[in-house]
């Protein structure tokens, strides 16, 4: 008998098997999330998940919590409404590079600007997996995709840095090769009472790998590991030497006013009225 | 009976508030029906400003003013632009400090317009010491001249419409306007 995964109780077993490809990083990231959630001593029943469209956005559907699988790119706007309507919920957003940074880019920077207490796990595989291997806003310059048959000419976004610049109070980047660090950062993000963004660089052997001569998950992991530079080291390196590197570490870890607390504060301080929760179910308002 | 009123001037004079007070007086305190509309075009960002009120004993169906029974002009530009819509035998109230009735005297004669001069801006400045209450002075004059709303209703509507703490000055402005047309 194989040993049962200790995280199984958190999964909707009746939805298995999942749709992820062999070698996909999503499984490792789900494990990292659940480990971090336990380490942060979160109440799993109080977690609500929101996601957009794409491979990574399918994750909440496999977890046994309230989950809102929304439209492409818009997860953060739905999450903003959900969290504002009930700020007692711990809202976690799973998203990908295309979902968060391309179609949802505007929502991403505005959610960071508001410092709304959401924990966003952005699984960055540098490609559109669900639709079959098109380049994304994080695809490295020169990489290949079905919509970049001659190599991607565009400069990719650096998401963790972008989100930090937009005002997130916690932002970090790790890869699926550094699970320990990833767990620690997700834990930090869950505990941070503000906008937390954890970017995870991951392998997509099916599309990114196949298009870029990295046919196995292990080959991809090896390249990712070889290209990783810690932020502390990167800060002392020249931009030229950082080309093609994945800089890992924390890009923001600070505190400032949180969005839903500010809304509540106006109601309480000006009108002596706490923001109502679950008001739709009553007529006594 | 349906009465159509158009109050016009330039941005900042408070012609919109004057119209709102007329409408509010009529339907909240005089037991009549009223609809107030205004222009929202780029002109509302400065330049000409226009506010319209329909007051009626019965329900107001069509809500817009087409041919006013009463035209109140607080700028010359507005006077020239809107005089042509005024009904035959209609009432024209102008602020002589900001308009030149001579510019429209042909229309006044041809259409038998009844003209009243209410120096609202001067009264507001000289008697109340606040130029910005010229609109309320004008409401006083309109109330007295046209009787389209009652004095009691107007005072209640002013109290309910102006910023808290300014009621006294505004009522004084109204009374000064009401007295102008004695």
């Amino acid at each position, binding site marked *: 008998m194989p040993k049962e995964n200790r995280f199984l109780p958190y999964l909707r077993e009746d939805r298995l098997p999942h749709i992820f490809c062999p070698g996909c990083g999503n499984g490792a990231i789900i494990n990292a999330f659940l480990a971090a959630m336990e380490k942060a001593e979160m109440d799993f029943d109080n977690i609500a998940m929101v996601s957009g469209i794409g491979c990574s956005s399918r994750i909440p*559907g496999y977890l046994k919590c*309230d989950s809102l699988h929304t439209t492409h790119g818009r997860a*953060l*706007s*739905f999450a*903003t409404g*959900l969290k504002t309507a009930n700020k007692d919920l711990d809202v976690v957003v799973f998203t990908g590079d295309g979902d968060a940074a391309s179609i949802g880019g505007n929502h991403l920077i505005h959610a960071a600007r508001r410092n709304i207490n959401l924990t966003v796990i952005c699984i960055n595989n540098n490609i559109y997996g669900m639709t079959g291997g098109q380049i994304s806003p994080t695809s490295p310059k020169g990489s290949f995709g079905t919509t970049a048959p001659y190599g991607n000419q565009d400069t990719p976004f650096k998401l963790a840095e972008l989100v930090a610049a937009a005002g997130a109070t916690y932002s970090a980047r790790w890869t699926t090769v550094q699970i320990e660090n990833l767990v620690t950062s997700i834990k930090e993000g869950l505990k941070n009472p503000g906008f937390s963004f954890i970017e995870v660089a991951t392998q997509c052997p099916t599309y990114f790998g196949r298009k870029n001569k990295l046919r196995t998950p292990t080959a991809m992991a090896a390249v990712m590991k070889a290209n990783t530079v810690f932020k502390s080291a990167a800060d002392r390196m020249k931009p030229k030497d950082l080309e093609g590197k994945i800089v890992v570490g924390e890009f923001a870890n600070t505190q400032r006013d949180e969005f839903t607390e500010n809304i509540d504060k106006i109601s309480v301080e000006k009108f002596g*009225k706490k*923001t109502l929760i679950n*008001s739709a179910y009553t007529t006594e308002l | 009976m349906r009465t159509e009123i158009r109050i016009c001037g330039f941005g900042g004079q408070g012609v919109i508030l004057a119209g709102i007070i007329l409408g509010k007086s009529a339907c909240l305190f005089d037991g009549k029906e009223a609809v107030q509309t205004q222009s929202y075009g780029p002109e509302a960002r400065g330049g000409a400003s226009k506010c319209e009120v329909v007051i009626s004993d019965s329900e107001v169906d069509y809500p817009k003013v087409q041919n006013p029974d009463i035209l109140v002009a607080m700028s010359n530009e507005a006077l020239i632009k809107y005089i042509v819509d005024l009904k035959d035998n209609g009432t024209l109230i102008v602020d002589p400090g900001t308009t030149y009735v001579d510019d429209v005297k042909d229309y006044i004669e041809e259409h038998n317009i009844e003209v009243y001069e209410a120096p609202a801006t001067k009264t507001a400045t000289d008697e109340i010491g606040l130029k910005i209450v010229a609109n309320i002075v004008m409401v006083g004059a309109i109330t007295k001249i046209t009787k389209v709303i009652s004095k009691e209703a107007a005072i209640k509507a002013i109290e309910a419409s102006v910023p808290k703490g300014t009621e006294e000055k505004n009522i004084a402005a109204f009374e000064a306007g009401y007295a102008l047309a004695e």
Partner: protein
Amino acid sequence: MAEEFFIQGNEACAKGAIAAGCRFFAGYPITPSTEVAETLARELPKVGGSFVQMEDEIASAGAIIGASWGGAKSMTATSGPGISLMQENIGYAFMSETPIVIVDVQRGSPSTAQPTMAAQGDMMQARWGSHGDYEPIALSPSSVQEFFDFTIKAFNLAEEYRVPVFVMADEVIGHMREKIIVEDSIEIVPRKRPEKTDDYLPFENIENGTTPMPAFGDGFNIHVTGLTHDERGYPDTNTPETHDKLVQRICDKVLNNKDKICSVKSENCEDADIILVSYGAPVRSVVEAVNKTDKKVGYIKIDTPWPFPDEQIEKLTANAKDIIVVEMNLGQMYYEVDRVCKRNSNVHLMGVIGGLLPTPDEILEEIDRVGGN
């Protein structure tokens, strides 16, 4: 004691929302609807509600859906360009059966067109704007009082049927001031919380198609998706029967309750030669024209353009020779009236664009033209 106010249509809409129990508003500034947002920004904190100015209309629609699952009655208000942007998320709300209210204060269109002028160019956007098959509910107010009343009704219908409901107003009604009477006791429909049983199905295929909806955090651990899903909410995108059953039910829960949802008002229709059909602001001109004419003319005012009240309209127009649809576009609801009435009557369109409400005189001219003078 009932209270009386002399306020703008947009303010009345905001007041109605609060009276209906709306405690979350997300929106983006757009003329001529902005006063709805401005009023709620001021008033919601007073009643323990939340106001959020989002980064765009797409985000506004997303936020109100999220807030609805968070347990708050929620609303957004916008105009044509904003409605265009919201359409994908509106489709999501239909698919996920999320109660929300969308207020559209219509302006001259297409594109940016006439932000400060009135039109009724979004009626088909409310009907068919998002992709796929669904049955929307839309209400069109013709007075400031109705903008207040219909906003409350929109919330009640949204809860009753777990659907997005549109309030299709226009610049005339949004911006004009009139008296409204706010009664002491207003009937509002609270959301029903499901019972926590092992066999609870959040998307159960029941006869009237509406199951109670839990809030996130209630412990139901439900999955909500825009993908085709089974009764548990689990994606099942490749089984034709699952999709057919789901979409059919989402349509039927509105269509099978049309007799309860649809509303029209009418006068002098029984023996009229000509019947004027209108909704929203043009009703005001139509009523005045009908009162002025000495011809045998009646009118029908459509309170609920969607679902289209075909049965009521067919019955009311059975004896009319001619029907004139008066609307502020180049023919939208006209085609619905024509579909229903063309067997018995000649259906004419009086489509007015340009931004001004058609005048009673213009309508009287149209009556003369159609009726032969």
